[in-house]
């Protein structure tokens, strides 16, 4: 694994916001040992920060301390470095110490986004969910455009089974990033869980529209749904057709032609699971899916 390919992988992980700590640690350690960070300039510091966080995640605090020392030496009074020091503190010290550290920084500068987020994260982790929730609501009131904050709010509500509030938080996410099918899928599944089936179907179909839309050249029968499109078709199939009286708490009108929709979703799922992967292997779970879509409606 060469230096160049390691750096490319790290850059991809940074761009996609993935949290693949083990892989980042392996690649980053290689770059560190070959002292490749100096050549990168500005990008080198972000990569070093990425390696620091990954090493804390993986438990290699020795490497984390080394990287943190390098960063702190170069950027003496930076708030970003304060955040990293706080995270390092969270990993070993008791949570009260970390909370006190964050409270001190927030007193000096109460609009420090990163530190506020860390504080909310520590509160949630130590079980003070209500306090975390209040702080988070204040946070999203102050910083409306922070998508992460709304997503975290939706997650906290969903973990407490308050799916309506979760859906409301997700609707703000959709306002901020209307082009992202993943958040629409999350909203659709939340609506489904809170038994608002009409709205759920509408959003599942929106996901299909967003992710499968560039099939204008091929006939629909020839294209296989992949990725989250399959998940969206799952949401449209079977169960929905049973509830003939779809009462919707958001007053969405019930979709017409429910049986046709059910048929379409079943057919799409069959196509998705019939395609064979490499070496002609069968898709995992194919039998279960086929059995499920074939059960008669009770």
């Amino acid at each position, binding site marked *: 694994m060469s230096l160049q390919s390691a750096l490319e992988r790290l850059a991809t992980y940074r761009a996609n*916001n993935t949290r693949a700590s083990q892989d980042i640690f392996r690649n980053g350690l290689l770059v560190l040992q070959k002292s490749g960070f100096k050549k990168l300039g500005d990008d080198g510091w972000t990569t070093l920060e990425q390696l620091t966080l990954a090493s804390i*995640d993986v438990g290699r605090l020795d490497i984390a301390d080394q990287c943190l020392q390098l960063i702190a030496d170069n950027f003496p009074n930076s708030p970003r470095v304060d955040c990293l020091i706080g995270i390092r503190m969270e990993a070993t010290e008791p949570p009260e110490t970390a909370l006190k550290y964050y409270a001190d920084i927030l007193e000096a500068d109460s609009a420090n986004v990163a530190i506020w987020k860390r504080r909310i994260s520590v509160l949630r982790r130590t079980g003070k969910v209500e306090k975390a929730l209040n702080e988070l609501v204040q946070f999203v009131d102050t910083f409306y455009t922070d998508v992460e904050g709304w997503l975290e709010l939706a997650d906290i509500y969903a973990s407490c089974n308050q799916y309506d509030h979760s859906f409301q938080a997700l609707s703000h996410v959709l306002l901020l990033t209307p082009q992202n099918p993943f958040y629409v899928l999350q909203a659709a599944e939340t609506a489904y869980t809170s038994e608002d089936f009409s709205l759920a179907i509408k959003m599942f179909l929106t996901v299909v529209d967003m992710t*499968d839309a560039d099939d204008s050249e091929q006939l629909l029968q020839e294209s296989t749904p992949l*990725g989250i499109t399959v998940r969206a078709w799952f949401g449209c199939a079977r169960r929905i057709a049973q509830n003939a009286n779809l009462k919707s708490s958001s007053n969405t009108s019930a979709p017409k032609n429910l049986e046709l929709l059910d048929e379409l979703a079943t057919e799409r799922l069959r196509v998705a699971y019939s395609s064979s992967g490499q070496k002609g292997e069968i898709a995992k779970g194919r039998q279960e899916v086929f059995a499920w879509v074939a059960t008669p409606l009770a």
Partner: protein
Amino acid sequence: MIEKLFLTLATLALLHAAYSTYEHLSLLKALGKPEGSLPLDIVYESILALILGLLGASLNAPPLKDITWASEMKKRTIDGMDSRLGFAHYKSRGKFLFASPHDAKI
């Protein structure tokens, strides 16, 4: 393979044409008539170098990437979109899961 060959040939042809031009101009200066025109074969050589270079550069280009948003979204994962790294918990079981056996202190 053939792209790099074309590019190399084009570069060499261009350098050769440039050197020939320099030599020809020195010859003209020595003969006392610096207004003489350039011989045609040098011109043909440079045009050939241009064509070969164009072909080589076009063939040598990296593979084309999709520009639609949907195709970019196909490459992302739910975990990536939902990672919320600003709120991530760093006190996790990762310390125990990823530690190698010899540095475990259980």
